[in-house]
């Protein structure tokens, strides 16, 4: 049977529209079965007419969306949502000429001072590492003791139990691995860590990397219980200048929070393994964690420059990870599985600190 195409289209439309009688339906289905071209024609027709419908629906939906969109004050919204550069960057943009002049004057003044005091010619400006050296206090105590002896004439000396050095450390994992600075534990006989509640645990130094100023401790005290997975992640990539950062540490007996910003991509004397940070740190902050806003560890605080007040340095987390990777496996009795996802990303700073404080320790080093 030869059928003209317009007749076929009409049949297809009647079939699809359900307008056929039972007999017509049967005939048409038989035709489709016998002639593949009829079936193909029907599929094509269906596609095409469905596209016409979809196009119509799309136009209608777009009209609705545009009407809604027109009610939004996009301009104001945009102003609110632009990521504003940190105040340091803004200040630089607005006042860089003034700052440059001020900086030149300051540099001149420093050079002049150094020249006058003779420091320029013979001595390196010393870089003060932040372990609290209690030696001075001890000496004074001894003197006091001597005076007491002279007064009472009784000689009884107790063993010196003061911690010689103090610093900060933080947990790598929940199972007792803690990182601090090499310079904090260097030269110590025994190393203890003390948690936020004031309980101390004996630790063993399992690895040191003087190049990156990293030391890994393992708590080997039977009273120590697993403290659960750490809430922060260890960032592999580098962080950007101007990023808001903070640290938690033990410059004294209580844990202290220090807020700041990342101000330099390299550390003391252009050391690319470190960041420069503008953060209030004191002796005792050494070995503390440097975290970004999302709760990622981006570095380990390790020093403060004496000349430029405010500038501190932190070993980049990349090098911490490098150091961890190079620990010989036979030095480890448990595995170090580092957390790769911060569970604090959406928390406010205060909530982050609350979580964090259980994972930051005071490191006490004794040398008898």
């Amino acid at each position, binding site marked *: 049977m030869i059928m003209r195409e317009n007749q076929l*289209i009409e049949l297809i439309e009647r079939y699809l529209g359900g307008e056929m009688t039972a007999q017509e339906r049967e005939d048409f289905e038989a035709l489709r079965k016998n002639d593949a071209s009829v079936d193909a024609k029907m599929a094509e027709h269906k596609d*095409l007419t469905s596209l016409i419908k*979809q*196009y*119509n629906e*799309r136009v209608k939906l777009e009209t609705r969306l545009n009407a809604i969109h027109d009610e939004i004050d*996009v301009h104001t*919204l945009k102003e*609110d*949502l632009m990521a504003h550069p940190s105040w340091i960057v803004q200040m630089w943009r607005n006042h860089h000429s003034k700052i440059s002049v001020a900086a030149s004057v300051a540099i001149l003044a420093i050079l002049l001072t150094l020249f006058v005091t003779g420091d320029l010619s013979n001595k390196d400006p010393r870089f003060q590492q932040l372990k609290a050296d209690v030696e001075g206090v001890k000496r004074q105590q001894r003197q006091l003791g001597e005076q007491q002896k002279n007064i009472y004439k009784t000689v009884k000396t107790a063993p010196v139990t003061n911690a010689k050095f103090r610093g900060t450390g933080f947990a790598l994992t929940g199972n007792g691995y803690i990182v601090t600075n090499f310079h904090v534990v260097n030269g110590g006989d025994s190393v203890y860590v003390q948690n936020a509640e004031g309980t101390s645990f004996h630790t063993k130094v399992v690895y040191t990397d003087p190049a990156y100023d990293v030391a890994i401790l393992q708590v080997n005290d039977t009273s120590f219980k697993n403290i659960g997975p750490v809430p922060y992640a260890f960032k592999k990539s580098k962080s950007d200048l101007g990023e808001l950062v903070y640290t938690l540490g033990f410059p004294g007996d209580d844990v202290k929070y220090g807020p700041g910003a990342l101000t330099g991509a390299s550390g003391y004397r252009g050391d690319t393994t470190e960041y420069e940070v503008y953060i209030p740190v004191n002796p005792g902050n050494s070995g503390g964690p440097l975290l970004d806003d999302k709760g990622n560890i981006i570095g380990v605080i390790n020093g403060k420059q004496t000349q430029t007040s405010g500038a501190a340095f932190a070993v980049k987390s990349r090098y911490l990870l490098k150091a961890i990777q190079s620990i010989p496996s036979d030095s480890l009795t448990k595995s170090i599985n580092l957390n790769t996802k911060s569970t604090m990303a959406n928390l406010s700073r205060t909530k982050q600190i609350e979580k964090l404080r259980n994972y930051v320790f005071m490191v006490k080093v004794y040398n008898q």
Partner: protein
Amino acid sequence: MNNQLNVEIPSDSEVIIGILNNSDSVLKKLYLAYFPMVLQLIVNNNGDEDEAKDIYQEAIIVLYNKIKRGDFELSSKLKTYIYSVCRRLWLKRLKQLNRYAGGDIKDFEEFLPVEEEVERHEERDLQISKMGEALKLLGEPCKTIMEDFYMHNRSMQDICERFGYTNADNAKTQKYKCLQRLKKLFFQQ
């Protein structure tokens, strides 16, 4: 941010039910709820507000069609889904515009892999816009006849009266000719 603008965030199930029922108010709530999130993504990644509008509307269309097809599972949050689609669309757009600097884009939310879905949407979208072009080229009275018959489901009798054809057969012949032309225009593109 949302408090500031007094935006009410509709629940995910409210949106799904609303869209299935063609509710204008729910569509509006949905649109207003997540536009700021997408604007933030685009303007902080090399785009402007008009591009944000384009990308966002495309994502809403993807979501709308997905819900209409009945295959939106509540396993992911609407917010995450919309963000993921916009992120994917924007990455593609940046590459097309040669504005992509490489590396990561600045993210503000969690996101899911939606590459395949976006791919499928774009294929479909291409077909639909080809149809739009074909209809525009078709000219009158064919365009109106096609729209009346295939979009608005008007009967041949109605169409016959509207265009003043003397009988339904003439109208049918005319409709057939128009359809053939439309088909030709569609496949030519």
